[in-house]
């Protein structure tokens, strides 16, 4: 990967954000709503990408972090009657604490064992949600009531169920996380993460504490995923165990692989692509997952590093 000037990289990312902003005024209602959801889930994918793409740690349990944010924020509103900002902070806090604990335990393993351990922990979280059904709503989940999803600033209030407000809130969150991700991967810390991915032993020999760096990456990754979960609960009003199931551990992996692992914009592209393929094909056949599977195989064959990963490899070496 050749080095890009910071201005070029930031210009590209700001351009994407500007495009998403403009799209808010151009898209038909349905795609406007869908894109808001995609941006929130792209944040989930970006969190996953932080660990998988840049550190090379393949987790099969990231749904637990999304779930921590989802339930942390949702339950704070439903059971404790907290305001939206406090509930959002609660979701982030839950994700940060959970990722610290999981990181301390799971990082004792590597490779396949890391995958299995993260998957098992995610199952524990999923089953705990089912077990404590009296508070969590179990497999049916719970609705975050519409009147509570309001952001109040003094005398003014923003209704998060309003499509425009929701889109802008999702865009704001997406933009913030995108720029943070870009800053992190371009920072000295980001270089260390890539060094760990490429050769952990050599990084250790250079004097870096790889465990601490990896732990920090798990916490950053888990907290970003929890941010997405918290936003999902507050913006879309539903908290349910299916979002903590194994399916939602696999999905961010697919989104990142599609868009391009270790590319900052890949998670958005992958999520967008997958959503639209499902949305369009499900209108024609109930075997749409077969079409998704074929699309994935074709992408792996012709874009083995994902869409943006391949673009970077072949044409735009400076892509971050």
């Amino acid at each position, binding site marked *: 990967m050749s080095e890009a000037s910071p201005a070029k990289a930031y210009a590209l990312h700001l351009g994407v954000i500007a495009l998403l902003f403009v799209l808010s005024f151009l898209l038909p209602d*349905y795609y406007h709503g869908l894109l808001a*959801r995609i941006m929130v889930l792209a944040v989930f994918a970006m969190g996953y990408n932080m660990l998988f793409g840049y550190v090379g740690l393949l987790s099969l349990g990231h749904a637990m972090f999304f779930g921590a944010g989802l339930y942390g924020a949702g339950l704070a509103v439903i059971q404790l009657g907290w305001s939206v900002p406090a509930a959002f902070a609660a979701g982030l806090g839950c994700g940060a604490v959970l990722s610290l604990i999981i990181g301390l335990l799971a990082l004792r393993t590597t490779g396949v064992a890391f995958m299995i351990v993260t998957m098992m922990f995610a199952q524990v979280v999923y089953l705990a949600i089912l077990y404590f059904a009296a508070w969590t709503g*179990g497999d*049916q*989940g719970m609705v975050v009531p519409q009147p509570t999803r309001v952001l109040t600033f003094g005398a003014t209030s923003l209704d998060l169920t309003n499509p425009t407000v929701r889109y802008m809130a999702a865009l704001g969150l997406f933009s913030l996380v995108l720029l943070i991700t870009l800053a992190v991967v371009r920072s000295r810390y980001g270089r260390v993460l890539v060094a760990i991915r490429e050769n952990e032993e050599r990084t250790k020999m250079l004097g870096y504490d790889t465990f601490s760096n990896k732990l920090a990456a798990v916490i950053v990754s888990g907290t970003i995923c929890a941010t997405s979960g918290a936003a999902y609960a507050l913006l879309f009003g*539903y908290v349910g165990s299916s979002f903590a199931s194994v399916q939602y551990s696999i999905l961010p992996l697919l989104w990142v692989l599609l868009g391009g692992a270790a590319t900052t914009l890949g998670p958005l592209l992958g999520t967008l692509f997958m959503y639209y393929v499902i949305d369009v094909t499900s209108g024609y056949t109930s075997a749409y997952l077969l079409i998704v599977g074929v699309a994935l195989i074709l992408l792996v064959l012709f874009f083995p590093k994902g869409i943006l990963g391949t673009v970077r490899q072949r044409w735009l070496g400076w892509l971050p």
Partner: protein
Amino acid sequence: MTDKNGFFDLSKTTLTRRTALKGLAAGAGLAVAPGFVRYSQAQSSAPIKIGFQSHRTGIGAAYGRWYEKTTAAAIKAINAAGGINGRQVEVIIEDDGTDPGRGAEVVGKFATQHKTDIVFGTLFSHVVIGSAPAAGEAKMPYFVVSEGHHVASTKLNRYVFQPGITDVKSQIQSMAPWIAANAGKKVTQIFPDFAFGYDHRDYLPPALKAQGAEVIAQIAIPPTESSFTKYFPQIPPETEVIYHVMVGPAVLTFVKELGEFYGSNRPQLFGFIDSLEAVDINSPGLEFLDGSHFWEGSPRYAQPDDTEAQKAYRASVGIDDNGAAVGDPKDVSTAAHMFGCWETLYVVKKAMEDAGYKGPEDRAKLVEATEALKEFAEGPEHPQGPKTFNGKIHQCFGIQNISKVEGGKLKVVHKTKIEEGLYEAEGDYTTQAL
């Protein structure tokens, strides 16, 4: 009369080529204007669009397929009889994958892309609960056929209705008098350790207690379990009735292992047919169920005393006397639940006609008209039986069937009364703003 000085004085008009072209352009413009001609047509003859949120894939696929068949039959009958308010009805189907996240997206798609008049047909509770916020935000009337207690709990919103099928709380409550009087007073419950099971766990004990019977043990089985023998020693020996509501593919193993555990000397068995919807009651391993009893919303097998309305409904949907698809005896229907689609669509028709519904701008009127409904008489529109409707909790109440497995068929041995399933309202949707 001619107005020589006014607009209609054509004698002074000279038609130039430019004027003619302008006139033609204006006429053509009006003809293709999106809001003019089509709008006036929409008010009169454009079809009413119903968005059907179907479980075509995922865990609910077997139900989804039969819900679609029943819906198609009902729409055909409604259209043949002149439609709703003189307009034909068109159904647009979207698959929600039996997933609450996708369910919410599908409701959004119906509201903003297909621009349907209502959304209808969802069964699985988690999909209903996941989709309800989207329906409420879009102010989209959302008629579910789920049997969950979530609508009646008043935890959803004013746009969600369940007028075509009773909810599980009411069903359980209706079963208690018969169980206590006919099966036994000491009941052990075996249920899956998730929400469907919890409804039975929570609602049966008080209902039985009111009838002088009691639940003496509750055995929750984790949803991941594939073998059940180790749980059976927990069944107290004094148990007179085992009340079981296991669902999913594991039910065959459950019944087989229960049979091996008890042999021929077993307590009475009572279950909910949900366990065996779309499953042939004569499947290998289910022999142990012979002589046991099941709740059925609507009977799977044709009964000697079926009403003409019930017979006509079965013929329209295309199920034979054994509750399987006509021409394919292995394609067993979800008869106990799918009638809810048929009946819900007729409730929608009645509410739209009462509201003088013309288009999406009348959705609030439709909500109020639905809330104003009180009773549905048994007949071609409601072949399962008579119902009452509580507009405050958006839930209907009706009769239930208790059927005995006899000679490889389910024979209805008791029908409950509507009153047995009534309970105190837990809230009031009508106090919410539209």
